[in-house]
């Protein structure tokens, strides 16, 4: 089969690989029809995630058709069209039993701090991902769901991560009616978080980024107010001015490890790997939240330490809530929102690229060329 393969930081190519095999009785092999590139994939692509091995295939956002099932699989059959949440999880361990599906303890030998994720380095379990023609889907009775006939395939694809994560991020904010919600990052996750904040009754939603075309999208697609942090001297001060000098009730970090806006933080983290992640957006979040406010961190950070302004968080009595999103838990309600026309997730997709050109797809998304917001990889016409 053809698969995207990592060759080192900023380098990938397409290679011929054997079709994955059933390795566990509850495995399925899925023939991928559509995959997407996530902002998280950029952290791998830039060499920021420890134990990213040459030869690995990325891709934790994908949909496809069941090609083969292991002997203990009961809930899926060959030929089913499925969407697969980006988390690999068992459903029954200490953490899964509490619904913490993204924190499963039974699927990742390499680390205990993070669960299993498709195509996300050995630190996340050593699984190959779905930017390929076929992918191994472990614990197939738990993760995948059959795609309802009425659902557009690209909407299904957005459910596997970006949409579910944005929606989850807004929920961790515990938004109450009238809250002022600030979202850092106008990538797919931030855009979906902004939309979700309205669903939960926000009174104002303000999105921050430095990419003008993404802020335009935030205004049109998510009805948000926007500020470019390069248009103002000090984004924290600007946000204080705009929130009656109090700060925002809820802040969502949808930026993560490669945050820009402070060259030292960015370079020490994203380029020199001396920090687990550049906490620029996180620090801005801490400083622009109101006292007693809540910060929901959806942006991903690596396992090393980061220079976070923790004193301000402590003195302000902030609640900081975090997690990888348990994607599938969000699906029943998200399907209702999509069916009712309240959300049209595929509207964030800007580029569709055949697997053979996956390297170009990554570069385009990484360098933010040509108005790129979300790139879909197609493995069949």
């Amino acid at each position, binding site marked *: 089969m053809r698969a995207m393969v990592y*060759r080192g930081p900023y*380098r990938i190519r397409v290679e011929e690989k054997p079709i994955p095999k059933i*390795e*566990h009785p509850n495995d399925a092999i899925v023939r991928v029809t559509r995959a997407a590139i996530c902002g998280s994939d950029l952290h791998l692509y830039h060499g920021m995630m*420890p*134990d*990213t*091995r040459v*030869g*690995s*295939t990325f891709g934790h956002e994908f949909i496809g058709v069941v090609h083969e099932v292991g002997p*203990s699989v009961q809930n899926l059959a060959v030929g089913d069209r499925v969407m697969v949440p980006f988390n*690999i999880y068992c459903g*029954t361990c200490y953490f899964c039993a509490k*619904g913490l599906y993204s924190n499963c*303890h*039974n*699927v*990742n*030998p*390499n*680390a*205990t*701090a993070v669960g299993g994720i498709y195509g996300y380095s050995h*630190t996340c*379990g*050593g*699984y190959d991902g779905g930017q390929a023609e076929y992918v191994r889907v472990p*614990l197939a009775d738990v993760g995948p769901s059959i795609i309802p006939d009425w659902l557009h395939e690209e909407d299904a694809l957005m459910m596997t991560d970006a949409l579910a994560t944005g929606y989850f991020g807004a*929920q*961790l904010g515990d938004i109450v009616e*009238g*809250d002022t919600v600030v979202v850092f990052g106008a990538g797919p996750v931030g855009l979906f978080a902004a939309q*979700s904040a*309205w*669903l*939960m*009754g926000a*009174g104002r939603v303000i999105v921050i980024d430095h990419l003008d075309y993404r802020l335009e999208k935030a205004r049109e697609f998510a*009805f948000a107010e926007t500020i*470019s942090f*390069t*248009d103002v001297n000090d984004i924290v001060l600007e946000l204080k001015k705009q929130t*009656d*000098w109090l700060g925002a009730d809820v802040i969502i970090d949808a930026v993560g490890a490669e945050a820009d806006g402070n*060259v030292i933080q*960015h370079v020490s983290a994203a*380029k*020199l*790997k*001396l920090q687990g992640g550049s906490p620029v957006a996180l620090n801005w979040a801490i400083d622009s939240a109101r006292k007693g406010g809540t910060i929901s961190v959806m942006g991903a950070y690596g396992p090393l330490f980061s220079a976070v302004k923790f004193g301000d968080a402590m003195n302000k009595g902030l609640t900081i809530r975090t997690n990888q999103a348990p994607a599938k*838990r969000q699906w029943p*309600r998200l399907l209702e929102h999509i069916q009712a026309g309240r959300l049209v997730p595929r509207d964030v997709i800007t580029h569709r690229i055949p697997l053979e050109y996956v*390297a*170009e*797809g990554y*570069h*385009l998304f990484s360098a*933010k060329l*040509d108005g790129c917001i979300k790139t879909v990889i197609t493995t069949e016409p």
Partner: protein
Amino acid sequence: MPYIASEHTHPSSDELRARIPGWGADLDPADRPSVPRERSDLASGAHWVIPEQQPELRRRERSVEHGMLPPVFGTAQPLHGISGLIRGAAYKRFSEAQTAHWLLLILGDRVDVIGSRARSTVRGRPDNPIRETGVLSEIGRHPIGSRFGRGRADVKHSWLDPVIVLGPVSVLALVLVARRRR
């Protein structure tokens, strides 16, 4: 304006409901699937207490913070060569709490890259930097217009991308390991 106990200024809920599709659909926390975040009444589809054990056909490295090999794991790129020795040592000797664990893994990553480049060349499939970096996607995609004159913060340092990726962290890992040995 004095600081008084009143709400933030914001448009009225009626105004928002009229302007924004779906506004307030999830006002009631009962409609939010992750509130509360921890719930024990969910049906996951699992029909096991513990998943069956996946056979360990090759020795599988694992974090020392795991009491046993978890029942399900990836087998995508087994440890091999010098990078395998480095990564293996990171897993065997240091918990996830130790900086040396992660710096050794990053060092292993860089060694892996160098080794793989060499192997690929010997096997007659040398790396092609032009294709692999995807720079060809610049053509026709507004490389100048996308980057300059529009307030992008990253143009200040993006020239560093190719230069820096390989460097300094490897040195640091070595220093840290040497210090622990003493």
